[in-house]
């Protein structure tokens, strides 16, 4: 289902791209393409388990 902080944008903070790219609202920046696989829960990956930014943002369990 993907991370609730994930957004797809073609522009942010003065940076523009032709295609919409993965943007992290928690970190306030575009994410690396490899990290986007975490954000989208692709393959064997789960954002709640594998993203340190999400885990920090959600606070201690």
């Amino acid at each position: 289902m993907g991370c609730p902080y994930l957004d797809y944008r073609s522009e942010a903070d003065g940076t523009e791209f032709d295609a919409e790219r993965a943007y992290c609202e928690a970190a306030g920046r575009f994410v690396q393409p490899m990290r986007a696989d975490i954000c989208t829960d692709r393959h064997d990956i789960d954002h709640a388990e594998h993203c340190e930014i999400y885990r920090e943002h959600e606070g201690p369990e």
Partner: protein
Amino acid sequence: MSYDAYLEGEPVIITAALTGGIHGKEANPNLPETPEEIGRAAGAAADAGAAVVHLHARADNGERSFSTDRFEAIDEAVRRHADDVVIQHSTGGTGVPAEQRAQPLRTDPPPEMASLDMGPLNRYEYLTSENTRGLVDALQAEMRDRGIKPELEVFNDGHLNEVHGLLDRRDLAAPVYATLIFGGGTLTPPRPRNLLNAVDNLPDGALFNTLGFGRHQLPLTTMGILLGGHVRVGLEDNVYYRRGELADSNAQLVERTARIAEELGRPVATPSQARKILGL
């Protein structure tokens, strides 16, 4: 391979790692991502002296793709711009099931070469690319069946043991070709003495390629040339030309390496020389 290879002026193979699968245009807008961009980058890199292009596939938004179709689209674009360059597909893929890791080997035609990661490495805080021996052997078997030469990626010194283990378990065509990789995290610390040590611990007769991440690309590849090895440069491994200045292109990084190699007395290998050296 040795210092003698340098003294004898043997040709150096430059591999251009054009795109990668970790960072993208958010790190350097000049990094090619679409098949056409990668094809054009391959053409320029080949003109600058690259004999081999190391390829990953991406979707149009830069995200990783492992699909055979996408690799075929990239290869077709590369062939339009660089009809003789040696194509090398990546089989790397953190967090990706084994079945998908084999997809880049199944293009028609197959690539002449493909990468084979020699063991585990950490990514971010909670991911590990496991690269179990079982997966390494399965990928190597498929490469052998399809006539693809493996490029053994040695991310740290433990992976040198894995290279010896792989040779004990499996038949690999000579010459064995290993890329020695230096950087942060799980990688071998990027220090000159560690390159010397890694070269000393390769199997007899193995050829090596040097890869340094970020600011270590220039010094360690230069040292690799002096040690008689081959080198890999490109925006996958390093997005800067010099401190604080993003690289304009992959070709810019290849041009510098070609210039250094020629100055040091090692001619830059053409694709046909690279095929002969690598036994393709």
